[in-house]
């Protein structure tokens, strides 16, 4: 509301978005009420959480996975699907 948005002269016509993947600028992390915490020692890097996460918030690392809290909405799918139960959902601070 505060920042001035571009006007008709500078906006591309037709409502086209010329920058693909720009939604990365829109952080959905603040939607989260619960937060997945990964016990990386237990993680077997099966990547199931990675493939199932609707928000691409699981980061593939060499030996285990990590969470990108900028986008994780805290749905808990990862925790639910983890075969070794190494992800726990903890309530966000408030």
């Amino acid at each position, binding site marked *: 509301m505060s920042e001035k948005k571009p006007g008709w002269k500078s906006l591309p016509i037709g409502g086209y978005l010329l920058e693909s993947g720009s939604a990365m600028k829109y952080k959905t992390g603040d*939607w989260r009420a619960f937060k997945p915490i990964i016990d990386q020692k237990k993680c077997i890097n099966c990547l199931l959480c990675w493939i199932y996460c609707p928000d691409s918030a699981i980061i593939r690392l060499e030996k285990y996975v990590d969470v990108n809290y900028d986008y994780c909405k805290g749905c808990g799918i990862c925790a639910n699907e983890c075969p070794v139960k190494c992800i726990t959902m903890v309530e966000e601070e408030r």
Partner: protein
Amino acid sequence: MLIEVRWHGRGGQGIVTVSRLLAQAALLDGKYVQAFPEFGPERRGAPVTGYTRISDKPIFVHSQIYNPNIVVVVDPTLIGRVNVAAGLAPKGFIVANSERRPEELEGILGVKDAKVYVVNAMKIALDVLGRPIYNTAMLGALLKAAPLTTMDSLIKVISERFPGAVGEKNIAVIKRAYEEAVGVE
């Protein structure tokens, strides 16, 4: 006088419902009202807002609310993440669901001119309803902060909207929130 209230919460937390419950209660008091959601395609989990207008006289204005007199924060996790105090009118109120003390919150929100009220709606909801549904509790806290309606009207509206046990529990929630809400000026 026209009072404008803004509600902050998340998609799925009953923000529209509570904005309307307040208006319904005010209707019983013979007031004129408007209650409307933020007009967007926001989804469950996303921060959303709702609005209530209450007045003694017919309300003609149909524009958005930019400078609410009162802001109610239903979801505690929004504090610090969303600028809930944005546009708050001079001498406005903020009523928040929080475990903190009002003074502490005042600091976090960085508001000067506003009165801050606080209630631990989470605890009340879990205690009484057994589920993390905070919206009705905030009605009680709001009533404590500002007499926009009466407890009687609230009770009536709640028992109509939620007949039976659910209603009774919610009434209990409201009453307790009214009791427990504390504010600083």
